[in-house]
């Protein structure tokens, strides 16, 4: 390791203050700190030892919790591909391979345009270190895209999200809206035909789908009952794809790359909760809010979608993914513990309301989270105000 360290030390010189490449100091620092944890020591006064955690490890934990869903997503892209084109894969590896070919370029494009171009440019201009936040956003963005997403759109969305939703606010830790969701919302409103409808959820490559293959997501099917008046569960059963509750839970269904498998997402959730990186309060309250709202609607029961069993809401669409990986984003969620309950529950409730009552958007979780991101500071404001009031009251006794 000494040898490698020496190389780094030598390479470092031009990037130091006064060196030729001093402007790019933070670029070098990024690489340097990825290789080696620096030899910084505690200051003279204050805490003399530090916790072994740092932002990199923190973010890495999130990435690792995303891996099961991502790997499954790749597999599922291939699985859906073979289902749709009616070919027989020779082995499981074939399925993977299709998925990898499709998903890995999306991830690479996201990183190249979001991180390497946009974020590095800002770090040079604004002279701030490159935070690890984008490591996570760079994985999240591909996972909320449909598998057919054109690469140029991924690039546009990544740049837009990093510039407008993050750097405009001062970088990692300062943003108000979830970066990955802004990327998705950008595409959703800018180029709707490529990210919504029934045609985008299954990657076909150059092939043509077999007759009768619809490619509709469970959400779209559920929403279609508003017009058809058919029972949702029966509609699911009648579909060519297996939309049984169990399969919806396992996730072999069309959808965004990372969102289909509730099982894999729950594994990720377990990692997040166990490590304390993701807030279990938010997760529980999103699921709880959604479930209770769905129950309430099924009591009202004005149409077939409302009558869909409430637990189906938890396994269709991106609810689980949003609850576990998006709503828990510590920067954009409420920052008070009490606030988290309100924040999560509102996300769950709004998601179901948008799904059932708003025919314009089959999926509600994205907008529900963005909406609550906007209102999180207000929720916090009142929680903090209550804390201040408590202090005033208590002290005068």
């Amino acid at each position, binding site marked *: 390791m000494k040898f490698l360290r020496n190389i780094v030390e030598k390479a470092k010189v031009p990037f130091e203050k006064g060196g030729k490449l001093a402007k790019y100091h933070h670029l070098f620092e990024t690489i340097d700190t990825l290789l080696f944890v620096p030899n910084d020591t505690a200051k003279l006064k204050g805490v003399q030892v530090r916790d072994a955690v740092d932002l990199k490890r923190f973010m890495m934990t999130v990435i690792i919790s995303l891996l099961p869903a991502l790997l499954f997503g790749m597999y599922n892209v291939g699985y859906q591909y073979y289902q749709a084109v009616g070919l027989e894969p020779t082995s499981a590896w074939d399925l993977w391979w299709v998925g990898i070919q499709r998903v890995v370029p999306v991830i690479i494009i996201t990183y190249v345009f979001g991180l390497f171009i946009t974020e590095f440019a800002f770090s040079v201009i604004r002279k701030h270190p490159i935070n690890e936040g984008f490591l996570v956003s760079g994985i999240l963005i591909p996972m909320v895209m449909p598998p057919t997403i054109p690469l140029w759109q991924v690039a546009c969305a990544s740049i837009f999200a990093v510039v407008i939703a993050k750097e405009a606010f001062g970088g990692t830790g300062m943003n108000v809206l979830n970066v990955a969701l802004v990327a998705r919302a950008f595409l959703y409103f800018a180029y*709707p*035909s490529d990210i919504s409808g029934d045609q985008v959820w299954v990657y076909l490559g150059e092939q043509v789908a077999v007759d009768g293959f619809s490619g509709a997501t469970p959400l779209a099917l559920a929403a279609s009952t508003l017009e058809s008046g058919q029972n949702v569960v029966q509609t699911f059963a009648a579909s060519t794809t297996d939309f049984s509750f169990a399969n919806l839970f396992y996730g072999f269904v069309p959808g965004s790359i990372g969102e289909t498998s509730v099982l894999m997402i729950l594994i990720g959730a377990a990692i997040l909760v166990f490590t304390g990186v993701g807030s279990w309060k938010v997760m529980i309250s999103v699921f709880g809010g959604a479930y209770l709202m769905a129950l309430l609607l099924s009591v009202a029961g004005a149409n077939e979608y409302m009558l869909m069993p409430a637990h189906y809401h938890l396994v269709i669409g991106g609810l689980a993914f949003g609850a576990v990986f998006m709503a828990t984003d510590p920067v954009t969620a409420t920052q008070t513990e009490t606030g988290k309950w309100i924040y999560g529950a509102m996300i769950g409730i709004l998601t179901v309301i948008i799904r059932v009552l708003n025919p314009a958007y089959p999926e509600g979780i994205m907008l529900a989270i963005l909406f609550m991101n906007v209102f999180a500071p207000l929720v916090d404001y009142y929680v903090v105000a209550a804390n201040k009031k408590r202090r005033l009251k208590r002290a005068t006794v």
Partner: protein
Amino acid sequence: MQRSNTYVLVFTAIMTVVIGGILSFTSQVLAPAQKKSVELDTKQSILGAVMTLEKGDDALAIYSTRIKSMVVDIDGNLIDKNRKGNPIVAEEVNILKNYKMDAGKREYPVYQYMNENDPTQIEAYILPLYGAGLWNAIYGYVALEKDLNTIKGVSFGHVQETPGLGARIDSKEIQVRYQGKTIFDESGNLVSVVMLKGEKKNPSLFGTHEVDGMSGSTLTAKGLNAMVKDYLTCYESFIKKNQHQ
């Protein structure tokens, strides 16, 4: 500048008179031009359903030679007096006001598009439409061929405050999709024409009662479908009556 109350009052009075004068003057002077503009606009959009007006075309002249208008009620009977007993003019029927009333009580204008050479021959019927889009009202005209089944053309418009993706309904590109579609099925039931979800681009995929959708504006399409269907239903008696003539 502290002035006496009298001064303030006199000043205000003069202001009011001057401003009032200027405004009534402007309004008087411009009234004929405005009336003409509104008329032109209405007539242009009516004609828009059956023909493409070129720049420089005298819409008013074409209109006066080619269009014969009348007003019918829900049962398809001709009416010539409005509720107040005054003579009724099809062009002056306020579609929005009528839209807010019960379908049974509305006045339904019909514009007959006459043959260029033989002004007694009806070439098409143009019917006004009105409904709710995503944000605001949408409106338009649908022109039916003589058979009162095949669509000759449509023109749509929307109240333009904040246009969304659905704003495309006023473009020719969307409107031509309706041409040649039929509104009745084989057994003579009114099925209207439905704009589908999503945009598929291949015209051969659509049935005779279907047109391609607009991506990203499912709701506008929905409003459009509802509007077309609603108004065709209202005119159904009239259509049925005239189909068999």
